[in-house]
């Protein structure tokens, strides 16, 4: 669910706010969908997509997304998903083609694949802008569409150039380990990395929020850079604890399982069950870290954003969210994917219940803005979700 598009500030002069009722009211998002309905919608659409060899999949996407959007209501009015299937289908075909060429290139010639990866990397910020534009344009509430202004320079700055800065600590490690100071290099690189990464992430968030608009107002962002450092330092701490705990657990299990026939164990060629269970134990550790970063960044994004006279308050909490993710993963795996709709509804319900819009107005003071927005291709959005790139939302 992309209520992430509703973050934000002011770009048109404030219209006169009604003088009455200036006490702040808080309105929670409400998720009205249920797993039974969504399961039927989902399975029928997946089946039709497979039977039509993927042609119907664009229609299926529109229907399932419409269900998620329209089941989310703010002040008793549901959101709307307005995208048309055909542009999505076109985008999907284009993505499949690019993907196929890339996959094949690796087997034919390494330089060609490297070149392709470089080209994709160069286009990534452009695709991020396009995909944010597409999402915003086709999300609407009470008849007004969201809007994302194109800012390619900003996208290239925050999603490409600043990442090049991260190459500096890498070079540092190589130079220092070549000089025999591997440990010093590693520590310095770690310090440089923790110095740069939160700064990039914070600025990406600000850039993204500040280019969104709704109803004649732009979203504003009052970011505190120190907040992001706190988030990532905590995330590193959680990573160390979680991986140590999971590794210890795995070690204990492996030793007890191997007891007696340790001599048959070849560390260079471990048996399949050993590798599989290593992944199985590490997956929760990864999830524990990812959930923290995701939760903290989402809260940060909403809590620092503002739209007109309205503020946002996001209250995602670590343990409930981690519980949802873990149990979702277990149930989805055990049902071979059939519980996917249930998992999705659960998460959407939790996320909606933890987002409030606070302000003195009655939410009626948004107006259609003067921008005329052209149609935006779906290819970039599709590319994004296929390559699994999280835009940091």
């Amino acid at each position: 669910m992309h209520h992430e598009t509703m973050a934000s500030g002011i770009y048109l002069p404030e219209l006169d706010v009604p003088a009455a009722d200036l006490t702040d009211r808080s309105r929670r998002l409400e998720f009205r969908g249920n797993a039974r309905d969504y399961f039927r919608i989902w399975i029928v659409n997946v089946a039709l997509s497979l039977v039509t060899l993927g042609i119907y999949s664009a229609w299926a996407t529109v229907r399932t997304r419409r269900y998620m959007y329209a089941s989310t209501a703010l002040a008793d009015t549901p959101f709307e998903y307005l995208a048309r299937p055909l542009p999505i289908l076109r985008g999907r075909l284009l993505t499949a083609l690019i993907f196929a060429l890339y996959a094949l290139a690796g087997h034919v010639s390494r330089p060609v694949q490297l070149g392709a990866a470089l080209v994709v990397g160069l286009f990534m910020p452009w695709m991020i802008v396009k995909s944010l534009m597409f999402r915003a344009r086709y999300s609407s509430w009470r008849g007004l569409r969201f809007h994302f202004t194109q800012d390619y320079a900003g996208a290239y700055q925050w999603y490409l150039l600043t990442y090049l800065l991260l190459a500096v600590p890498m070079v540092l490690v190589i130079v220092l380990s070549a000089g025999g100071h591997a440990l010093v290099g590693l520590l310095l690189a770690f310090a440089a990395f923790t110095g740069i990464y939160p700064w990039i992430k914070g600025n990406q968030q600000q850039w993204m929020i500040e280019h969104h608009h709704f109803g004649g107002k732009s979203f504003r962002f009052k970011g505190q850079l120190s907040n992001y450092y706190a988030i990532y330092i905590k995330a590193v701490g959680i990573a160390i604890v979680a991986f140590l705990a999971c590794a210890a657990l795995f070690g204990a299990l492996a030793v007890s399982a191997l007891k007696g026939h340790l001599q048959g164990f070849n560390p260079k060629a471990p048996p399949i069950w050993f590798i599989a269970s290593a992944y199985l134990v590490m997956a929760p550790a990864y999830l524990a870290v990812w959930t923290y970063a995701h939760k903290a960044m989402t809260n940060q994004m909403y809590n620092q954003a503002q739209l007109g006279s309205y503020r946002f308050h996001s209250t995602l909490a670590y343990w409930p969210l981690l519980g949802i993710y873990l149990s979702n993963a277990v149930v989805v795996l055990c049902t071979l994917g059939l519980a996917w709709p249930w998992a999705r509804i659960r998460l959407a319900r939790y996320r909606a219940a933890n987002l409030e819009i606070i302000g003195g107005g009655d939410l009626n003071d948004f107006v259609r803005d003067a921008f005329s927005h052209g149609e935006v291709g779906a290819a970039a959005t599709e590319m994004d979700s296929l390559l699994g790139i999280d835009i940091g939302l």
Partner: protein
Amino acid sequence: MTPAVYFDGLSTRPIWVEVWREDAVLHWRTADRQRAWQASLASMEPSARVTGLPFVLHLADGAHLQIEHDQMPADWFPGHHRLEKLVDWLERRWMAALAGVVVVVVSLLALFEYGVPWAADRVADHLPHALESSMGRQSLTALEGRVLLPTHLSAERQTHLQAVFWHFALGMPGLGDVRLKFYSAPMIGANAFALPDGTIVFTDQLASALPDDEAFIAVIAHELGHQVHHHMLRQVLRNSGAFIVAGMMMGDVTSMGGITAGIPLFLINSHYSRTFEEDADGFAFAALSRQDIDPVAFVHMMQALQRSHPESKDQAAERYVMSHPLNADRIGRAEAASLAFKARHGAGAAVQAKK
């Protein structure tokens, strides 16, 4: 009269109205009758029906009417969204959902069992041979010097094996451009594999574990089978195909897709390589029979390799066995081929004796 909410498209202010229809025109007004609007049905674009969701009737000027689900009379827009009406009808039925589960399972099986391999093989047929050669060269350059080191086999052993190889290969028409190369490969141990450009890579470790020339020919026949049927190219295409198809399907499922897609993809890929192994076996049995070698030589070779390393330090020989597991199926097929071979030879001998 149907209750609805009217948004004028200029602001987010909701206006509660009552809607009714007069012929081809829709009318709506506020409850206090202070304000009223109208528009022809033809000028409106209704949203498609979805369980539980309100209908949205979009007007030409950007305004819209929102009508609660199941409250809109069905005869207002009979001709719209014909396809989605059918889909909606299905989506409301548990029987359809159940049928959907069956359809999904069956079509996923069919897609990965027949669809992807079929499409990949058609693509393979149409790719230029130059692509296949450059693929083989690319793999060899990637491995040479790192995994594949210069051979330690003596010159005469090499000459002997090459001679056996060429004697066998030249006896097979339509083999195309093939060559045999020896490498020392401590990392991968006893192994042999066919590259798409016609190169058969044979490791020293495997060469020294083979009991006799017949076993050597058995391995070669199997690898030539991979070569003749373009297995490596087809494997690459099938795996990429499965990867792309799965990726497209997981596209909507981004967050958890990565983790869950890995396991089935691994199973699918090893399933494809198993069918290729069967193919290569079949080719080998036929080729061996044609050159008057009993296909059972293949089983003997595998058994010899398995015997040669019972919990010994020689783990190397195990590798070829591991990538070519000797299961009952495989032995069964080899023995069937061997029986057919013996029957044919027995008959041939009998015919010759009569003459």
